[in-house]
């Protein structure tokens, strides 16, 4: 018995000639789509900042403006539903600009056949979530598409807020020495969605972390914490957010992997499915880059809010090649990279 000596080799994968689901996964494919196809066509300096929202000056007032579309399945999941997500996602994008969210729009794309009871329930949830986040839904739109052309309901929300931060918040403000804070445990939203979508039964039900982040963010700003960058951890999770900021800032970020809170049930689900919690989606978590002398105070302030009660110091920014390096539980380091697309459960 001998192994064939000639080198055989799989063919190169053809470049994607059509959109695949992974283009929406918050990873490298999505970045490539934005950089190579969208920005060249419609780019401008504000869009090119690629932050969670745009900051524009109108009549001497700095406004934050953002939009997001929600296409989640199932429509209701432990800890939330698509409507609550649509409000909090957009509110959080505004908060990440250092802004106080004011008004939202809600565009509904309904699929023929969607139950009126369910739609009513989701609209109630939309209203409740807006009230909880302190925003008003002031305009909207409703369209109906043929049966089979949608997943029951898609929701687009756009939002406007007033920027309360005096200094620009974004990757370009990140400096060596900045301390990186993480607002709480990661991975719950992604696992909750996956478990309810695929009917996976875990011993302990995992609830989404979906929540508005305005409270802790505005508290940091009001108390004069010098915040250089904020980012909520949605698709692509903590890993993708850190890599994006390292590249945007042109700085190296060093994190302590052991400091990252992951609930045991989330860790267990990730082990089972072969997923890395670092790249699992969240909807109520953020990272903040603050000046080193403000770090302890910022941590104390975050811990006074329920949504960020488990905040931790995650790491710091140092001078160097723009990349993210994590020190693991064994004391060895690994490079944190962008995910390729969506994480896929492994075979065994």
């Amino acid at each position, binding site marked *: *018995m001998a192994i064939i000596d000639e080198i055989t080799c799989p063919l190169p994968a053809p470049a994607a000639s059509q959109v695949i689901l992974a283009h929406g996964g918050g990873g490298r494919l999505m970045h490539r789509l934005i950089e190579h196809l969208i920005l060249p066509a419609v780019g401008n300096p504000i869009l090119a900042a690629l932050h969670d929202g745009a900051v524009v000056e109108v009549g001497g007032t700095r406004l934050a403006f953002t939009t997001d579309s929600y296409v989640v399945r199932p429509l209701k999941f432990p800890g939330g539903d698509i409507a609550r997500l649509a409000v909090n996602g957009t509110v959080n994008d505004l908060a990440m600009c250092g802004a106080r969210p004011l008004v939202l729009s809600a565009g509904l794309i309904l699929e023929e056949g969607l139950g009126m009871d369910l739609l009513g329930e989701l609209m109630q949830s939309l209203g409740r979530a807006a009230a909880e986040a302190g925003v008003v839904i002031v305009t909207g739109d409703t369209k109906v598409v043929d049966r089979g052309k949608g997943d029951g309901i898609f929701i687009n929300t756009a939002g406007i807020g007033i920027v309360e931060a005096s200094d620009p918040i974004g990757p370009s403000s990140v400096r060596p020495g900045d301390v990186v804070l993480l607002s709480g445990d990661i991975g719950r939203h992604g696992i909750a969605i996956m478990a309810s979508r695929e009917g996976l039964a875990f011993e302990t039900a995992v609830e989404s972390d979906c929540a508005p982040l305005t409270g802790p963010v505005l508290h940091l700003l009001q108390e004069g914490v010098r915040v250089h960058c904020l980012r909520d951890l949605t698709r692509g999770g903590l890993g993708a957010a850190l890599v994006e900021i390292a590249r945007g800032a042109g700085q190296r970020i060093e994190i302590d992997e052991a400091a990252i809170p992951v609930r045991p049930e989330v860790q267990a689900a990730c082990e089972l499915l072969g997923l890395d919690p670092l790249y699992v989606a969240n909807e109520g978590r953020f990272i903040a880059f603050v000046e080193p002398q403000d770090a302890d105070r910022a941590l104390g302030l975050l811990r006074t809010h329920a949504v960020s009660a488990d905040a931790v110091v995650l790491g710091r920014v140092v001078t160097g090649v723009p990349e993210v390096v994590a020190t693991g539980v064994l004391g060895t380091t690994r490079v944190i990279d962008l995910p390729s697309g969506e994480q896929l459960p492994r075979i065994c």
Partner: protein
Amino acid sequence: MKFVQEFREGSAARRYARAIAAITTRPWTLMEVCGGQTHAILRFGIDRLLPPEITLIHGPGCPVCVTPLELIDKALAIARRPEVVFCSFGDMLRVPGSSGDLQGVKALGGDVRVVYSPLDAVALAQRLPEREVVFFAVGFETTAPANAMAVLRARSLGLRNFSILVAHVLVPPAMEAILASPRCRVQGFLAAGHVCTVTGYAGYDRLARTYRVPIVVTGFEPLDLLQGIYMCVRQLEEGRAEVENQYARSVRREGNTEAQRVMAEVFEVSDRQWRGIGEIPQSGLALRAPYRMFDAERRFGLTVRCAAEPAECIAGLVLQGVHTPPECPAFGTRCTPETPLGAPMVSAEGACAAYYRFRGPPEGRGRDGDYR
């Protein structure tokens, strides 16, 4: 998490690393067989805890990596058929065939679904009697019993719209093929714990004896791997070549006899092509005659003509442990997770993907991305 964090304890890991260093007197090259072990070694940086005399090379134990191009092409052809619901584990979706991958088939309208268990595919066939449900039965001895169960379930339910595309491979013949090769560098094996949970390890005695190579059945957590390496090095230093079991909390010598019985009921051993390696005799599984009605290849009467494979990537040599991924000139440049030249860069358990992900692309080398 109970019974996981205990096996990732930093101070215990460093103690093990010191113990390995203390007994190592000369260079040794060990191969971990399973892609899950490769992944854990790179993720936790276990190779960096070891003394420089110990070289870890990576084995063929990534089922996604070794599934032959021809079978991927057959999967694509079946998945493109309008009557078919094609079910697969997630990590097969991105493996390139001659004409794209399953993700692309899905994007063009093929009904491709990720399932978490072959029994989910059987349930789907029950729910969709007007469709043909096909499950891509990929994997080593670890997944074969569940896939055999799915066939038995489909038969007991009288399903005529369920079939499996069999791509099973067996680990011991691949280990023997590596040992028999003149290019073999392996001096000791860390055998795949999950595979041995099913098969046991009595079958490894002959390999250890014939090729004078220690084989340590090893688990997947950092302390498992370090203990497995310690046991392997100790044998080498003492001049022994035996089969030992590090993963005793999961593996018995005789394995899981019920799982073996189900496997043997449904499957028989057959010759099998390994992607990047070639044919290894008696290294695969095929459906036995009474179950061939569930064979998707027969049901869809496929003849797929495979395109020749270009020679740039050295996937085959990586899978045989002859080279490590960073030794490939295309690694991280022309071959990346988005534009893979070979399956080991695609799969979550592929050695190339593990190096790329945890050490970064080549420009990171020499610093934290250092490839020792």
